[in-house]
């Protein structure tokens, strides 16, 4: 009988205690951040969308090798000896045309492994997180500033330059041949 009454009393008491807490919370101000109107400032080390400062990029491919998901695709064309490509901000001489530098943000896992190995720190994470799309294809960002035909042009004249070098090498080899057998 005592157990019976203790149960009833315990049930009523704990219900009242619980209700007291929720009532207290009814009057405490809400902690909600009203997102679209109030945007909280994010800490500076935040990891959201990647940004590549393409004119600092020397096309060394370190970031795409470090990426576990291999979502960075880089294509470079060797510059002809005569061409001058300017220097990066910290004074490194650029030797490669970066014809294609795509990051597929649908694949990226935002782990920041690509930011550390970059010699010129041209790839870093910004705090932009609002870039959802209706179509998956435009989640692939193209950072290289060479347009299609420029890239094709660069590749074309590099092949041409390559062919000339072959021809010269073949020619010098032939000359050496003529010299020593004769």
């Amino acid at each position, binding site marked *: 009988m005592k157990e019976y009454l203790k149960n009833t009393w315990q*049930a009523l008491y704990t219900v009242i205690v*619980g209700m007291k*807490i929720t009532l207290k919370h009814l009057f405490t101000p809400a902690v909600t951040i009203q997102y679209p109107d109030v945007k909280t400032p994010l800490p500076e080390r935040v990891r959201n969308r990647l940004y590549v400062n393409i004119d600092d990029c020397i096309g060394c491919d370190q970031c795409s090798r470090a990426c576990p998901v291999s979502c960075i695709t880089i294509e470079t064309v060797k510059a002809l000896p005569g061409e001058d490509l300017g220097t990066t901000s910290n004074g490194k001489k650029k030797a490669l045309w970066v014809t294609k530098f795509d990051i597929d943000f649908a694949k990226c896992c935002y782990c920041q*492994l690509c930011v550390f190995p970059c010699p010129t720190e041209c790839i870093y*994470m910004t705090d932009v997180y609002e870039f959802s799309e209706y179509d998956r294809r435009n989640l692939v960002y193209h950072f290289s500033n060479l347009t299609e035909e420029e890239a094709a042009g660069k590749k074309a004249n590099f092949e041409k330059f390559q062919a000339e070098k072959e021809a010269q090498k073949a020619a010098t080899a032939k000359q050496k041949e003529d010299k020593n057998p004769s």
Partner: protein
Amino acid sequence: MALKTETMILNMGPQHPSTHGVLRLELELEGELIVDVKPHIGYLHRCFEKHAEAMTYPQVIPYTDRMDYLASMYNNFGYVLAVEKLLGIEVPERVEYIRVIMGELQRIASHLVAIGTYGLDIGAFTPFLYCFRDREKILNLFEITCGARLLYNYMWVGGLSHDIHPDFVRLTKDFIKEFRPTIKELNDLLSYNKIFIERTANIGILPLATAINYGVTGPSLRGSGLAFDLRKEEPYSIYDRFDFDVPVGQGLMGTVGDCWDRYYVRVLEMEQSLRIIEQAIDKIPDGDVHSAIPRRIKPPVGTVYQRVENPRGELGYFIISDGSTNPFRVKVRAPSFVNLEVLGELCKGHLVADVIAILGSIDIVLGEVDR
């Protein structure tokens, strides 16, 4: 002539509000009584071990994050300790202290989710939201240090990715001061509530012998009365420098090893983690966290098995290296995978509502079960 009754197969399918993710429970019911429970897993198998073989050692760390996504800091911790044991490198004191603090903060965050979803399973909505509100404070702490909220890739082999933020220490101290009263409030609202006790006491009793035979570890094992905590049993990193006690289920509200004990051990463990953080936060020595990170990681040929005390139990990494930059084989002993086996044993003879209570008390994460 006895009336022939037929058991009903009820599928608590991969989409169910309280299976903590994508787990299918095949219940054989006699009316509402459970005859047999067969869990079907594999709905979230993301082939972690295949990825581990194809990546270099540092690249595997983002994948260890995604296994137990509620305690990803601790997954890194386990993997990183294993590789350091293989390489045999020493880690500076500062890194050790920061790792312990981050690990214990992650344990509190993970227990908060476990307690919140357990309240949700029993039917109380409000504790879930209070727990998530407190958890946001911890996520802010993580975000100012390494920039991510949930999957950090913070602990690297031999060091850390970022040093802690200048006002990390002050914010952690504020958090500890604010968090203690909320544990007491949570206890009044949920733990000592008569209906909650009625729903969880004497339900799903796990005797100690079956627990050990089934390999159950973590709060589920400690709920059954055995003080087996790897931080005390086999102290890794610098856990032996802190004094904290290991809470054990004493059967306050029913027999030892029932759902209420497993739940209450988690609440007490949060208290102990606070104590550890308090002791560690003041004694962080200064130094460089990037000093011991090797340029290229090529460990010698060999095997290592390193286990750590994940908030859900004993998380073990078994790494076989063949001398190249990619691990030859990484096998993960996930605590939730092992704890889930005992569900069939615990649920016999209970009601449908109890299966949800028992599943909630074992606290599994499907990312870790299916790897």
